[in-house]
């Protein structure tokens, strides 16, 4: 079969070839009709936006919930926090992401009316963020539990309070240890962002499905979209590797068994 990447230089209105492939985005041709390449780039930007916002949500909540799961249950407050975080993790990791996206988009706003005013981009990011936070919480918890228990004892023995020992001793090491699994969770997040198309975020997968319908050039379209996804995931991987190098502790060897879930 022959590839025809000329499809990306076609006008999205009538399928005619346009002069400049990047006509609309770079303003090369004023008022020109956008090409499929323009559309692809815009779709990529949406993918990045969804993945970016959900990553922020997921990291904040994931670290918080993962930490709460490990705190010593020695007071009523602590006990209820542990329970809350356990429930959080169980709830958000046992429902498929697609169903969660529908829940946030269709079901919950039906009961909580103000949520309807939020753009679908925000809702889907919440859904993805919460879903991923449950997984990140598990990684963080495992990271904390992978530390020798003596570390916490040593901190407490020096007179640190529980929160001080988390802040100065446990989390700095645990977060370093979980960088490899966090890397794969972040890459998963990029991949999972493809479900956003189901609720009308015009990102790469929506582009792929619509453009392949309009142009009948499925292979080329899917190839381009797949490459962009892989490129995005790879960049995330590189950034995390950089962070890992920057935060490496001299002389400390992490025995990491990379995360297995996806």
């Amino acid at each position, binding site marked *: 079969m022959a590839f025809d990447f000329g499809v990306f230089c076609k006008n999205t209105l009538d399928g005619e070839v346009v002069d400049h492939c990047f006509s609309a985005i770079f303003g090369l041709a004023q008022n020109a009709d956008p090409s499929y390449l323009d559309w692809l780039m815009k779709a990529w930007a949406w993918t990045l936006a969804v993945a970016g916002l959900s990553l922020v949500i997921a990291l904040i909540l994931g670290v918080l919930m993962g930490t709460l799961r490990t705190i010593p249950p*020695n007071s009523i407050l602590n006990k209820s926090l542990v329970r809350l975080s356990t429930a959080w993790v169980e709830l958000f990791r046992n429902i498929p992401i697609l169903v969660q996206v529908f829940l946030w988009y269709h079901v919950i706003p039906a009961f909580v009316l103000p949520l309807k005013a939020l753009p679908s981009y925000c809702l889907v990011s919440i859904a993805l963020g919460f879903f991923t936070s449950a997984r990140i919480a598990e990684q963080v918890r495992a990271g904390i539990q992978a530390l*020798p228990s*003596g*570390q916490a*004892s*040593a*901190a*407490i*023995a*020096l*007179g*640190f*309070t529980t929160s*001080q020992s988390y802040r*100065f*001793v446990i989390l*700095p*090491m645990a977060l*370093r240890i979980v960088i490899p699994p966090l890397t794969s969770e972040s890459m998963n997040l990029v991949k999972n962002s493809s479900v956003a198309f189901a609720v009308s975020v015009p990102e790469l997968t929506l582009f792929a499905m619509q453009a392949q319908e309009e142009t009948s050039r499925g292979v080329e379209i899917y190839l381009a979209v797949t490459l962009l996804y892989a490129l995005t995931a790879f960049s995330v991987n590189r950034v995390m590797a950089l962070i890992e190098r920057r935060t490496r*502790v*001299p*002389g*400390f*060897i992490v025995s990491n068994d990379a995360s297995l879930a996806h």
Partner: protein
Amino acid sequence: MIELRNVSKWYGAFQVLTDCSTSIKKGEVVVICGPSGSGKSTLIKAINALEPFQSGEIIVDGISLGDPKTNLPKLRARVGMVFQHFELFPHLSVTENLTIAQIKVLGRSVDEAQAQGLRYLDRVGLIAQKDKFPGQLSGGQQQRVAIARALCMDPIVMLFDEPTSALDPEMVGEVLDVMVGLANDGMTMCCVTHEMGFARKVSNRVIFMDHGKIIEDCSKDDFFGDPDARSPRAKDFLSKILAH
């Protein structure tokens, strides 16, 4: 200085400590020994309020650990503790390991904390390593830093939990030397160890535990000098440990 009265502790149905009572006076050096799993670590951790216990009472410097009004972190800061596996904080440099608790817990200024930290680092003979990270030190060096870290808090008593048993044999000596020095300077010490040479040399008293009970609690001379007055379990243990 430290007083234990009928301390008992259970893990579920399993009793780890049974009615343990003893006391440690200022300036005393007490060695705790006994077979693996006999509750030595649990007992010493209980003194530092790292392990809760269900009945009995532990009083450190006049303050009861069981009292809900006791500010445990503050009390712990005054009791130095050294662990089998050193437990230096791997992401902090040696100097930071020495100063962080002084700054965050005792509220000392950074300068003050560093001066104190380097003084004790010098004392354990490692001033040259002050900017390294724990992972870059040998086990013996790490343990000496850990001792210096505990000393920086100006503790009223030092607790040691098998401080030499995770070390290569070559390095045992350098750590024991530091501990002997401390004992000779009059530091109150309570030390779980199987180094009977150390016990013979500096201890005032030896406590022998088995199955969570304190079986022997007598002066060093009685313990080593008069084996026939000892319980069979202690005698057996001593013979095994001194055989080779």
